[in-house]
């Protein structure tokens, strides 16, 4: 939660969109409520014993699905995904802003590519990371929802131009109107996806917590 809160301002700093920010804030509020509910709930549900969730939470990977409101590995995955998705949202916004700057001639394509390229792999790896987590947690539906994006990322990186460094963007072709438009569209689509995913993870987390 706190991480998330810390992130929010930085997102807000991005001029990219009020909508996003508003959504974010709503999401954050929802999360806050949800977490409060979870925490309170656990106490409420299991007032007598030491709350399994906590131990589970501390444990690396408790696989046991205790009948109690377990803070399962799946829930942990969801929480982690929630946080990481927030980071990805930040990436996406950054991406959109960067291409907008390119389009409006605020920045030199070489500089812009130099700032964007190092961010590409981290983004892909973060996404791949929690995909793997979901795989481990056997959250098939969630994994399935993420597979297309994962596949897209792999394809995208496989078909990148010849480059010696990491990254996707080639300053010599980036100004091509098609590529520019494509990158911008890609940024918006990803942003939408991550936002939806964020709420889905939130829901999934609660669902897992509650149902377990």
């Amino acid at each position, binding site marked *: 939660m706190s991480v998330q809160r810390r992130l929010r301002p930085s997102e807000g700093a991005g001029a990219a969109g009020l909508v996003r920010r508003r959504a974010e804030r709503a999401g954050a509020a929802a999360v806050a409520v949800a977490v409060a509910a979870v925490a309170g709930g656990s106490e409420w549900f299991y007032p007598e014993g030491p709350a399994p969730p906590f131990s589970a939470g501390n444990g690396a990977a408790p696989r046991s699905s205790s009948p109690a409101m377990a803070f399962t590995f799946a829930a942990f995955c969801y929480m982690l995904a929630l946080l990481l998705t927030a980071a990805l949202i930040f990436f996406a916004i950054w991406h959109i802003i960067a291409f907008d700057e390119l389009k409006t*001639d605020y920045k*030199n394509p070489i500089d812009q590519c130099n700032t964007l390229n190092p961010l590409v792999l981290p983004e892909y790896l973060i996404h791949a990371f929690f995909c793997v987590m979901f795989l481990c947690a056997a959250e098939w539906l969630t994994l399935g929802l993420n597979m297309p994006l994962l596949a897209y990322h792999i394809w*995208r990186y496989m078909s990148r131009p010849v480059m010696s460094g990491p990254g996707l963007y*080639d300053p010599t072709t980036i100004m091509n109107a*098609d590529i520019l438009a494509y990158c911008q569209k890609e940024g918006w689509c990803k942003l939408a996806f991550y936002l939806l995913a964020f709420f889905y993870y939130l829901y999934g987390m609660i669902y897992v917590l509650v149902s377990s």
Partner: protein
Amino acid sequence: MSAPAGSSHPAASARIPPKFGGAAVSGAAAPAGPGAGPAPHQQNGPAQNQMQVPSGYGLHHQNYIAPSGHYSQGPGKMTSLPLDTQCGDYYSALYTVPTQNVTPNTVNQQPGAQQLYSRGPPAPHIVGSTLGSFQGAASSASHLHTSASQPYSSFVNHYNSPAMYSASSSVASQGFPSTCGHYAMSTVSNAAYPSVSYPSLPAGDTYGQMFTSQNAPTVRPVKDNSFSGQNTAISHPSPLPPPPSQQHHQQQSLSGYNTLTWSSPGLPSTQDNLIRNHTGSLAVANNNPTITDSLSCPVMQNVQPPKSSPVVSTVLSGSSGSSSTRTPLTANHPVEPVTSVTQPSELLQQKGVDSSSTTSSASPMPNSYDALEGGSYPDMLSSSASSPAPDPAPEPDPASAPAPASAAAPVIPQPSKVAKPFGYGYPTLQPGYQNATAPLISGVQPSNPVYSGFQQYPQYPGVNQLSSSIGGLSLQSSPQPESLRPVNLTQERNILPMTPVWAPVPNLNADLKKLNCSPDSFRCTLTNIPQTQALLNKAKLPLGLLLHPFRDLTQLPVITSNTIVRCRSCRTYINPFVSFIDQRRWKCNLCYRVNDVPEEFMYNPLTRSYGEPHKRPEVQNSTVEFIASSDYMLRPPQPAVYLFVLDVSHNAVEAGYLTILCQSLLENLDKLPGDSRTRIGFMTFDSTIHFYNLQEGLSQPQMLIVSDIDDVFLPTPDSLLVNLYESKELIKDLLNALPNMFTNTRETHSALGPALQAAFKLMSPTGGRVSVFQTQLPSLGAGLLQSREDPNQRSSTKVVQHLGPATDFYKKLALDCSGQQTAVDLFLLSSQYSDLASLACMSKYSAGCIYYYPSFHYTHNPSQAEKLQKDLKRYLTRKIGFEAVMRIRCTKGLSMHTFHGNFFVRSTDLLSLANINPDAGFAVQLSIEESLTDTSLVCFQTALLYTSSKGERRIRVHTLCLPVVSSLADVYAGVDVQAAICLLANMAVDRSVSSSLSDARDALVNAVVDSLSAYGSTVSNLQHSALMAPSSLKLFPLYVLALLKQKAFRTGTSTRLDDRVYAMCQIKSQPLVHLMKMIHPNLYRIDRLTDEGAVHVNDRVVPQPPLQKLSAEKLTREGAFLMDCGSVFYIWVGKGCDNNFIEDVLGYTNFASIPQKMTHLPELDTLSSERARSFITWLRDSRPLSPILHIVKDESPAKAEFFQHLIEDRTEAAFSYYEFLLHVQQQICK
């Protein structure tokens, strides 16, 4: 990413428009339908006017119309010779006319037809009104031609009876023999025809003689004759397009004269004026006469007719102007005779100058340039002014100018009004589409806007609209544009015109046309810009610009002023297409912002007058160069710096290029462009890097060897690049020593990458040019490459791999260089695979250029050695611009999509060019982002800011103005097929690299299929079984087939990867004229050269043989043929070739004694040898890369080289032209 992008480009944009022309037969009907609708209207309109007017008046009207006739003729020409005629025709017309007469052969069918025509025209003369009517008829006739000739003609007869037939002459121009016959018949009946001027037209003298004869005897008949003659010549001339144009003008003007005098004897003053105009005004003069005529008419008779008349007059002027403009352009650039036409134009001009009357015909443009430089400028202005002015008073040109000024105020409001009418009027004008005709139509209405632009043409404010509407009507009567004439591709056997194809002229009014940028520098694939992206998508044609911004120009207005006037919001430079709202304000033509005219701009240094900002050279020339102030510098202008990086490994020494290079450098050391600050340096490399200390004061050059190629450093950074003049002796010593320094080297490795890094370090403080000579794959250090080519795949029909770079080392290096204003030029002289795809990146992104000499060896391959020598000479001495940027702006609503060429794209419309050279061409794809419905014109402006070799910061500005259209037919009518092909080729290169070669090939074929099927669907009443194309697109399939068989895109024929990649590089960086020769070579038969139609260049007679189509069926064993492939010439000598030719031209006694490898024509003192040599020299002079000549015997193995260029023939792996058409047809029917 790239994949999708690529796909979208080629696929979508690549598509070419379809054509009406599905079936010739049906086509005729179809065009008649659309064209006929408007055409009849128009005719009716004018006709009615005439009818109403009293007889005398009527005559006048006709006069007015006559101008339209001129226009129509123009179109006619266009039609017959779609592209060629436009440009060349006008200019060449003057002197060419004679040629045509002389060589009727060129037009097979036409000779007879022409005569008929000539007769026809005279008849009209007989009628008092004849001239006017005549001309009008001509215009109408032209209309008829396009649509349904007969009905119209009958129509015409009613009105102008004889005149109509004159129209027929225009018909003739269209080039249909049969139609001609019809016309001729009618005309003949009408006319009593005086001795035609034809015969009298000797080639050279044409002008003066023509005129005098005309004036003296029965003026009208003469004129008519000439006129008809011209028409025929023009229209049919396809073989010899150029000549007709000027003559037309002159003749027209003459006719105008005559008619005036005749019809209105009471107006002597006007006549005088006219005369004055002629003599005094330059090109405009032609127009003026007509205008004056019109004026006189109004004066004589009030009523409405005057209005119409003014309109007409404007039109006329426009027409003449347009023609004149064309000529001037060509004339201006004699240096770069792209086509034979240009030079003729010069001749014409000169001739025109000689005869006073002719003077007017002289192209205005040249004059303007001259004026700028020499002071004749005022004339230009006056002439232009006069044309508009005419109505107020029939005063001479100068007088007219003031008049406009006074009237300026009233005029001002017009622009807005005018613009609107123009916009909407345009569609109605459809018939006028053809280039020639179009001008007329557009000319009428546009004239108003033009006026507003120039402000001065006060004229008939109220009348404007009326006149415009009337004019529109009359114009509309104009025939269906020739460019829209449907052509049945599968049935048209000789699709290729006999003369070079010219760029179509945008359908603008005459004044704008005259001012428009030369197509040699600036061309658009669609000369009629579609209003919306949807319309563009429907047309399936690529929209883009082809630029040759730094072309060598012989005459260029250079403007030095403290303030360079630019739009405050979009930073557009002031140009001829802005409108002056009043004396103090101008409206930007790109963003429509109203700007103030700075005080300094009010003063015109050329005329030394104040308060005429519209007459400043910036506003009178679409190509100008400004001397920029320090505002345009980020740092003090850099000196010229040249660094040569030479491969001296064993391979390089073996090839022996060093001798040639050093020799060339020694010869041209003093000619290197630069000033006293010029610096030069040398580096050589094999597995180590050698620097040369040439610091002044040393007794001999000092060689410094750096063997640490992993971390290159500069041993003595200060003394490696030295002042050329201070260290000249040392440099010469070095150049003399270099070729022998490494003769015994055993070093086979090449550390190109480290050498380039060192070069970058050396150059980065100043910027400049790095010339890299490389002979093999770089094998050491950074940027080393491996061989990627699989020789077994060379003729694969499936996948061609490795078209892209293997490493981004060279690209990054190029970007670094570009950032430091350093360009890298690559000379690759290699006998084996050298991975040009990777190496080329060093030049591609640093705005360098690439030269490739496959299997270079100084003794084994002398032709390549010679080529290198000549290329080096050009390379070392040509102009160069440093630290350049080029920005392309376009009217709001359009946007740049993709750029093609060698540069780095720094922002959406800014190209960073470390160096710019005169041989660099660029292409830009455009997209229409917003609808252009509220504008009738769009403009494009290229501004190239560079540092000249003399350390001056300069800005070269080109501005192109094009009309906007709303109908699909208009879009097709304005297609510039050559530009479209070049743009497609560029897109296809991108596609092959980003996707695959087969994708690119498919996209090319789809371009044809899509455009033709889209055209077919717009023309519903065509036979669907036939493959129809509009006349403007008839060469499209042929060119696409040529592209598919081009080295860059061919499959199935063994093509070395480097050759292929080099062809692609050339496609990307060559300007249009050179690229077209590469794509579609020109074939001439040269064993029977005659002086028919010859042009005179520098006192030399250059024969102009007709073009042959690229098919073996045209080759006969009895002949000798010259093929001009741009960078290579082949002379193919047939087995049975006439021994006289072999002896006189080749210098051998018989066929058997001709050696296998022959690369020179001996200088023999025979007529045929002289002709052949002057023709080849003339072809050679027109291009930067001096082509090598191969003489190929029929039996020699080298003939495969020659035959691979016969693209209309079938090869093992590719379609013949006819098969390709069938294939396309099949695809369309799917």
